[in-house]
């Protein structure tokens, strides 16, 4: 009995505590930068798409909400011809971001994606692609990879030795 | 007041008839509750508000709840209703019905004689108490003795059988 009364008094005193509620629509909560929210596709510092359409994100996705089709430009650079994420399926697990070898697909702290029509939750590439580099500024996959693309020949990448001429056989 | 007396009396009689003829046990109990409530009103009209309140609190409010409780526990289905139907043959209810109608006739005769019907003197709680603890003291004490015996009996029946060897029970729980 005494114990119960003590409990009740403690609860009563909580009347004068600070409220912990964040009045959401009026008052935005502070969301940590590594929050797993809306998925975006980023660009490298040169302004080109980072995505190389390797399908690893689609393979990693546990709910199969990512669909894409790989294609190449005339210089051999791979990119997705379409890239579609169905956010009505997405569980925001972040596996796609972990799987991505080029840091192209990233999860952002934005979570306000409510829609009245379910169809509007299917995001196409133009909805996903942003102009910036996202969480990894400065990283440029093609600047460290050996593949030759437009404006960068073999051997031009960072810390890359020029290719060996196999036909000369001289050190 | 006369009118309310006769109305509630009629309700009591009708509800009691429904209790007897009802096939579903729970429905029959509900009619019994209605009948008790009607009797309470009769008491009130006759000038015994204390008895009326006790009728509702104890009979309608407590004892009938127990009855309903048991009926719900038993989970009687259609088979029980069919059996009730079999029991309701004229041969079974004719005898009690004749006796009861005799009583009814007697009651009608008393009323016709202008006995103590509506408009009687009100009996207050105090008078009931004085009567119980005055001339009827022995009866009250005997009744309380009976209740005590019932209480002890219920306590004995409801006792856990193996209170003295608790480890036995634990073992059985582990095995079970």
């Amino acid at each position: 009995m005494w114990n119960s009364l003590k409990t009740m008094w403690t609860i009563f005193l909580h009347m004068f505590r600070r409220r912990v509620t964040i009045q959401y629509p009026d008052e935005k909560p502070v969301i940590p930068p590594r929050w797993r929210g809306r998925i975006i596709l980023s660009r490298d510092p040169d302004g080109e798409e980072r995505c190389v359409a390797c399908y690893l994100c689609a393979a990693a996705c546990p709910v199969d909400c990512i669909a894409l089709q790989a294609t190449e430009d005339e210089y051999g650079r791979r990119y997705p011809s379409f890239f579609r994420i169905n956010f009505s399926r997405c569980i925001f697990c972040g596996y796609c971001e972990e799987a991505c070898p080029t840091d192209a697909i990233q999860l952002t702290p934005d979570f306000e994606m409510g829609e009245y029509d379910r169809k509007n939750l299917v995001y196409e590439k133009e909805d996903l692609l942003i102009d910036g580099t996202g969480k990894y500024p400065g990283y440029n996959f093609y600047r460290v990879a050996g593949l030759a693309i437009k404006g960068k020949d073999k051997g031009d990448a960072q810390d890359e030795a020029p290719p060996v001429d196999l036909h000369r056989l001289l050190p | 007041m006369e009118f309310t007396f006769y109305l509630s009396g009629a309700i009591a009689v009708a509800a009691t008839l429904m209790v007897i003829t009802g096939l579903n046990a729970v429905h029959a109990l509900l009619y019994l509750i209605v009948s008790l409530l009607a009797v309470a009103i009769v008491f009130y009209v006759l000038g015994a508000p204390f008895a009326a309140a006790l009728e509702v609190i104890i009979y309608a409010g407590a004892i009938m709840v127990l009855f309903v409780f048991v009926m719900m526990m038993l989970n009687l289905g259609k088979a029980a209703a069919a059996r009730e139907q079999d029991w309701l043959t004229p041969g079974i209810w004719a005898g009690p019905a004749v006796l009861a109608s005799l009583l009814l006739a007697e009651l009608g005769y008393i009323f016709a004689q202008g006995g103590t019907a509506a408009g009687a003197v009100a009996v207050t709680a105090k008078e009931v108490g004085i009567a119980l603890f005055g001339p009827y003291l022995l009866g009250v004490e005997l009744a309380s003795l009976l209740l005590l015996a019932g209480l002890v009996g219920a306590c004995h029946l409801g006792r856990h059988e193996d209170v003295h060897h608790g480890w036995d029970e634990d073992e059985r729980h582990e095995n079970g």
Partner: protein
Amino acid sequence: MSELALAWSNVILILAVVFSFAALLSWIERRLLGVWQDRYGPNRVGPFGLLQIAADAIKLLSKEDWVPPFSEKALFVLAPVIIAVTTLLAFAVVPVAPGIGVVDLNIGLLFFLAMSSLGVYSIVLGGWASNNKYSLLGGFRAAAQMLSYEVFMGLSLMGVVMLAGSFNLRDIVAAQEDLWFCIPQILGFITFTVAGIAEARRLPFDLPEAENELVAGFHTEYSSMKFGLFFIGEYVGVILISAMMVTLFFGGWLGPLLPPLMWFLLKTFIVIGFFILLRASLPRPRYDQLMAYAWKVMLPLTLVNLLVTGAIVLAWKS
């Protein structure tokens, strides 16, 4: 004729106040629970969230009023009516203030007890008629709980009756002119509070509807306005028990300075707040604990109170 008009206006006024206050209570309770749990509670709809009541009412009214095909239909519909009727009928004897009140019964206290004991049929029959195992279990629990707690609920009030020498609630209030009965009848007050919470099926003793074991207990199958009636019945029950506690132990309308009506409302509101505080702070006991508590602690305590009060009254009178 004017007397009749006065009586009717009394009835209608009390009905209106009780109903609107019961509706308001659903908002007050949520706000207070929020306050005691470091939250805000509903504050979005209208000023201070006051229109939440209207939103809830619209929601309840526009829901499908479903009578399950497997249920006992007549009883299923009847059950929520019983609770609303009995709790409202019990309000008839509550003496709000001098001149305000529906009837002035000689056996007012007994009438209140009778109505509160009839209210249990609503829960039991609702649970049985739903034909659902959770509802049935809720009904069982309600029946056993009400029976056990009613036993000492009536007895705990007999000390008050002894001191006041009457079952009439107005006489009881008048007898508290010098000293509120919560002081000489402290045991009776405690036991009546516990019994009252159990009768109103409020949170420490809401075993009949224990959400985390019985879905929603006896009203699992109820929806729309039938559920709304149960809901209103519960809140009216809370107001009723609070009003009775004020009448029996806190001197009813008595008090200095303020008008009697204000005193009554103020005291009732404080008691209701106490009920909500109980809900905010205490956990629900196990079922056997609940029954053991009633029979092994509360009933002996009540009988001791009765014995001591009787002895003192006898010694004092002679």
